[in-house]
């Protein structure tokens, strides 16, 4: 039973990381490096919380989270794609603005009890021992995250549009010469990344800890960015990495609850330290990272007309 309970908390902790990282994976596959995940996530969290409070419906909250993330990411899209600003700096600006704006918008929601997204009971399947509660008695966001993995994997590697998107990420000039609309695809990819980050934020404020706390993303957006590198831009590895990090951050909480003799601050460092260690292991082999990195990642594109 304890194992089951731990597994459930790991899933809840991993879901926002997986969703945000998937969004960023698609954005980066299109050649755009958006470092604003943390900002989009926290905006999604506050947007979702506010909408759920206003309507009383957690599902409208989720939709609002997605919309907030997507609209907020347009700001980044306009700057980097239309005005060709530096992507790294613009992403940082998005995070700084998101942290400030979300704190301002959310000020009146501090301390208000949140509305939780209910778990969905599936007849028969939810009753299977162990597998039932873990896999079939979850909230909608968990199912969405699984659908995203399957859907995105298919989209990127089996569909024509996915092939075009990857082509743009690998060589935007050639893609442009072939008549693919680079800017439009990149706008859509950025917005998709924003929508995913928004949903991930909504999961935080409507599922994980159903309340609004300032800075509640607590670096998860950055961990999601690290996950994309960890996964070397492959969807299934994002899923595996997300669950690994979910396990690390939950393991840290359980260790604190068991009263292990290590100060809680050091246990809290674990997810961040683990991120660094994983990055080292993945980046160590220069050749494998170079093969998988989208070749025009982070490079500005100005069409010659």
């Amino acid at each position, binding site marked *: 039973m304890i194992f089951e309970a731990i597994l459930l908390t790991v899933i809840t902790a991993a879901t926002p990381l997986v969703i945000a990282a998937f969004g960023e994976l698609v954005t980066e596959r299109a050649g755009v490096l958006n470092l604003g995940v943390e900002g989009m996530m926290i905006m999604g969290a506050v947007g979702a919380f506010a909408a759920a409070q206003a309507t009383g419906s957690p599902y409208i909250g989720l939709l609002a989270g997605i919309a907030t993330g997507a609209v907020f990411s347009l700001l980044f899209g306009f700057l980097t794609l239309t005005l*060709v600003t530096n992507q790294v700096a613009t992403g*940082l600006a998005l995070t700084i603005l998101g942290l*400030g*704006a979300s*704190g301002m918008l959310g000020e009146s929601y501090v301390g208000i009890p949140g509305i939780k997204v209910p778990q969905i009971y599936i007849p028969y399947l939810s009753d299977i021992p162990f597998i039932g509660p873990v896999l079939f008695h979850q909230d909608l966001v968990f199912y969405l995250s699984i659908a995203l993995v399957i859907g995105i994997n298919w989209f990127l590697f089996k569909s024509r549009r996915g092939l075009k998107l990857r082509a743009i990420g690998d060589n935007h000039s050639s893609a442009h010469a072939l008549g693919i609309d680079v800017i439009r695809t990149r706008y859509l990819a950025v917005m998709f990344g924003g929508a995913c980050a928004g949903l991930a934020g909504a999961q935080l404020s409507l599922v994980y800890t159903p309340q609004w706390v300032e800075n509640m993303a607590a*670096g998860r957006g950055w961990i999601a960015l*690290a996950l994309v*590198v960890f996964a070397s831009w492959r969807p299934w590895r994002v899923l595996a990495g997300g669950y690994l990090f979910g396990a690390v951050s939950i393991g840290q909480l359980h260790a604190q609850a068991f009263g292990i003799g290590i100060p809680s601050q*050091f246990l809290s460092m674990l997810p*961040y330290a683990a991120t660094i260690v994983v990055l080292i292991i993945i980046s160590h082999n220069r050749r494998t990272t170079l093969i998988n990195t989208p070749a025009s990642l982070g490079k500005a594109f100005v069409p010659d007309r």
Partner: protein
Amino acid sequence: MRIELEKRPQVSKLFGFVSPLLALVLTLVAGSIMFALLGKDPVGALNAFFVEPLLEIWSLHELAIKAAPLILIAVGLSVCYRSNNWNIGAEGQFTIGAIAGSILPIVFYDWHSPLVLPLMLIMGAIGGALFAAIPALLKAHFNTNEILTSLMLVYIAQLFLDWLIRGAWRDPKGFNFPVSRDFAPEAVLPAIWEESGRAHWAFIFAILAAILVWFMMRYTLKGFEVVVLGQSERAGRFAGFSSRRMIWFSFLLSGALAGLAGISEVSGSIGHLQPAISPGYGFTAIIVAFLGRLNPLGITASGLVLALTYLGGEAAQLSIGVSDKVTRVFQGLLLFFVLSCDTLIFYRIRIVWSRVQVVTGKVAQ
């Protein structure tokens, strides 16, 4: 409607100067819209935010206090960014610098000597540099993304400070509050001009750092190396410059300056260690660096502007009752506008209303 960019044949000198000013104006416009949406009188709010803090001597001192860490950190970051090394963990290097410099006044509090303060400053700078050496080592030898590692280290540094303050370094006479013991008088950074306000020597360090780095970038081979490697690693390699050595150089320099800022802030302004020692100076310094065009002299000016947003935020909180988060929003907006206005330096912007019109126009000719 479409926006098209047309590359300028030459970089526009005019816009190089105008664009930061334009960004400031646009930020003020966006800010007044924001205040109006919040139901405040925009003119009064902007006045309280950006003008009133400049009208009194003591608050000019406060401005210098807040500008000092921003300028110190941003000057270091400008060398990093110019050389294409993305250190965004200055907040962590600031924290570790503050901790390393505080070893003397907290652990060896019985040792009284005029040497204490200089040693503290040196140790702070070394602490910051050592902490910045971690992402540098990882980037130089394992090809690890320095953006992510330096940022993860910020969280680790803050947790480490929290642990110190709640554990070994907690003041035994502090009524169980998470603060360290107060620094002895000889461990406190002195004020520059005590009769009129609190501004301390950190501001002088900041100005000195800006001038020295400006000189280095402008007149020395090292500065040339930074720029060449930043623009093209390949070209730099042909010139015999090592990008690996540049990673070390830029990270150690920026880490040392951030660490110096950290210990100066703790010793000059706060007087002890506590869990929160920075209102995000390390991140705001990124904006300062860009607003100052990655030029140390420009950074000195932009550091004062960003310091004003902190000061104005505090003042506006009291006088017109807006949240202190408005500060962060202003800072974010400013960075956005700076980046977008910089486009004007390299490109002409044309708004094309309709594609069809252009085509028919050509046919008519």
